[in-house]
C-alpha cells in the first residue's frame, strides 16, 4: 500500500468510526432502533459512499446520472442517514431527530423525505425488485448509472428476493450490484437455527449471478471487489460480505437480543469508548 493510499485508508477508517458512533448516538437518543444491524453494515456503507464506489453529487440529489443506492435492510436507516449527512446531503443536526414525531428521519427510510433517500424500505425483501426497476428504467432512458442494493441476510428468507434474483439475471442487469450484509443473525437468533439460507453463494450462482465473498469489515477489500464488479458484463453481481452483528461493541457483538434494541445512556458510553479505541 502506498503512502497516499495509507492516508486514504486511515481517513476512511475514521469516517467508518464516526458512522458507527452516529448510529449509536441516534438510536440511544431515540431509545429505539437497530444499532447492531447498523454496526455490521458500517464498513460496507463507508466503502460505497466514501471509498469512491458510488457516483453522487450531494448538492444535486436528483442528478440524473447519480448511482442509486437502496438500503433494502431498512432497519439500518440510522446508518443511511448518517452516511447521507456525512456526504453533505443535509445538516448533521438533523441526525438528532431520528424517530421523532414529524421528523423526516423515520425509523425506516421513506423515499425523498430527505435528500438522498432513494427508496421506501423496511418491509424486508423489496429492495432488490425496486433496484431492477431502476436498472431497466435507466436502460430505457439510455442512462449509464449503476444501482447498489444493500441486503440483509434475514431477508434472503423472503421469496421475493429470489423472484428478483431470477429477474435480474433474466434481464441481464449488469449495472446492478447487491451487497449482502451476512452477519448471520436475525431478530430471534442465528439464521442457521431460525431458517438456514446456506449454501448461500451457491444459491446466487445457481440464479445466474456473479458472486464474490469478502470480509465485510475490510474497507480495502470491499472497495477492491466493488470496483472490480464494475467491469462485469452480462450478469448482476453480489458481494457476500461476512460481517459481525454489532461489530465494534464487545457486549453487543454476536448477541442477537440486541437486534431491535437501543443501548441506554450508560451502555452507550461504554460502547462509545470501545468504538473510539478500535
Amino acid at each position: 500500500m502506498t503512502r497516499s493510499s495509507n492516508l486514504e485508508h486511515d481517513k476512511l477508517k475514521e469516517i467508518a468510526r464516526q458512522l458507527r458512533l452516529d448510529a449509536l448516538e441516534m438510536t440511544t437518543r431515540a431509545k429505539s432502533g437497530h444499532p447492531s444491524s447498523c454496526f455490521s453494515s458500517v464498513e460496507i456503507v463507508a466503502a460505497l459512499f466514501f471509498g469512491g464506489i458510488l457516483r453522487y453529487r450531494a448538492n444535486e440529489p436528483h442528478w440524473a446520472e447519480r448511482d442509486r443506492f437502496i438500503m433494502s435492510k431498512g432497519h439500518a436507516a440510522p446508518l443511511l442517514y448518517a452516511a447521507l449527512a456525512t456526504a453533505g446531503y443535509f445538516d448533521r443536526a438533523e441526525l438528532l431527530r431520528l424517530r421523532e414525531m414529524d421528523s423526516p428521519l423515520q425509523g425506516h427510510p421513506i423515499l425523498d423525505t430527505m435528500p438522498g433517500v432513494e427508496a421506501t424500505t423496511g418491509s424486508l425483501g423489496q429492495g432488490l425488485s425496486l433496484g431492477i426497476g431502476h436498472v431497466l428504467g435507466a436502460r430505457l432512458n439510455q442512462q449509464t448509472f449503476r444501482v447498489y442494493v444493500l441486503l440483509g441476510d434475514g431477508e434472503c428468507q423472503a421469496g421475493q428476493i429470489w423472484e428478483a434474483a431470477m429477474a435480474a439475471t433474466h434481464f441481464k442487469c449488469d449495472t446492478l450490484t447487491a451487497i449482502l450484509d451476512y452477519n448471520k443473525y436475525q431478530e430471534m437468533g442465528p439464521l442457521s437455527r431460525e431458517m438456514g439460507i446456506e449454501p448461500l453463494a451457491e444459491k446466487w450462482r445457481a440464479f445466474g449471478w456473479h458472486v464474490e465473498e469478502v470480509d465485510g469489515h475490510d474497507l480495502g477489500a470491499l472497495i477492491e471487489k466493488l470496483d472490480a464488479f464494475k467491469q462485469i458484463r452480462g450478469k448482476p453481481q453480489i458481494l457476500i460480505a461476512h460481517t459481525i452483528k454489532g461489530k465494534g461493541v464487545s457486549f453487543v457483538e454476536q448477541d442477537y437480543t440486541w437486534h431491535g434494541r437501543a443501548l441506554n445512556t450508560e451502555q452507550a458510553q461504554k460502547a462509545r469508548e470501545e468504538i473510539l479505541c478500535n
Partner: protein
Amino acid sequence: MEILSRVHARNLVEWAKDKPNVVVLSADLTSSVEIDLFRDTYPDRFFSMGMAEQNMLSFAGGLAREGFLPFVHTFAVFIYRRAYDQFADSIAYPNLPVRLFGFLPGVTTPGGATHQAIEDIAVLRALPNLTIAEVGDATEMETVLDAIHPIQGPVYVRMLRGEVPRLFPKPEPFCLGQARVLSTGTDLTLFSSGLCTEEAMRATQALALRGISIQHLHVSTLKPFADPAVLAALKQAHLGVIAMENHTIIGGLGTCLAEMMAEAGIGKPLIRLGIPDTFLHGASKPYLMEKYGLDALALVRQIEKLVGTSLNITRQDLADIRLESVHSQAKAEGL
C-alpha cells in the same frame, strides 16, 4: 345494444401511442388481460415479469421512480392478495404513479374462488394514497385512462375484458369522482357499479312500466368516495336506498354508502345487494349472478320489499339477458 370485443387491448395501444413513458407489465397473463396487442406494437415498452407478482409490483415502484408510468396488468386477486405488502410499501406509501389493472372482478370468471376478486375494493379502499376506479361498460373502458391520467399517485382500476356492452354514450366519458345519473325518480335511489349496472338497467325499465320512480346512479369511483351528487341522491330517497355491486357486501359500494349515510345523518333503509360473505363457486356469469342474488330479478324482489307490494314482474318481463359467447379471446374456458 352494441357489444364490443377486446376494448382494452385496442384502446391501450392507441392511447399510449404518444406517451413513451407508459410501460406495461405482465405476469404471464398477457393474452388473458388483453395486453398482447401492446406487447406486439411496443415491444420495448413491455415487460414480461413471469409469474412473480411481488417482484413485479416493487419493480413497478422502481420504474415509476425513474419517470415511467408503469401499467401493471394481472388478475386482481394476484395484485391485492398475493402482493399487498409490495403494493403498500413499494407503491402506495411512496405515492408513486403506478396504474394497476385488476381483472376478473367477482363473478366474471368460471375459474372459481382462487381467481374471483370478491373483496379487492374492501381491501384496497383502506390503503392510503390510492385512487380506485371501476369500469362498467366499453365507454368507460375507453375513457378511464384519460380520466386517471392527471393523478400523481397510484390508481387501481377494476377492469373488464372480452365482450363488453356499450351502456353509456360514447361522448360521455368516465369522469373521476362523478356518478352517472341513469334515471331520475323519487321513490327510491339505486346505486350500481361495474357490471351490475347492466343488470340494474334490465330491471329499471320494467320497474318504470310499473310506475316505480327510481333515481339510478352508476358509481365508478370507489375512492375517494365524496361525490356531492351521491349525497344528494341519498338524501332524496323516499323509501330507501339500494346498492348493487359485483363484490362482497362487506367493504364495497354498499359499505361506502352506509358510511356516507351515517355520517350525514340520513336514516333510511339501505339494502346491500352483492356477493354474500362467502367464497363463490366457478360458473358462468349469469348463473352466478342469479345464484348469489345480484341479477335483475333479485333487484326487483328487493325493490318489492321496499315498496311493500308485489309488482308482478317475472323473468320474462325483464330485458333480455346477454349471453357472452366469449369470455376471453385467450382461452375458451374463460379463465
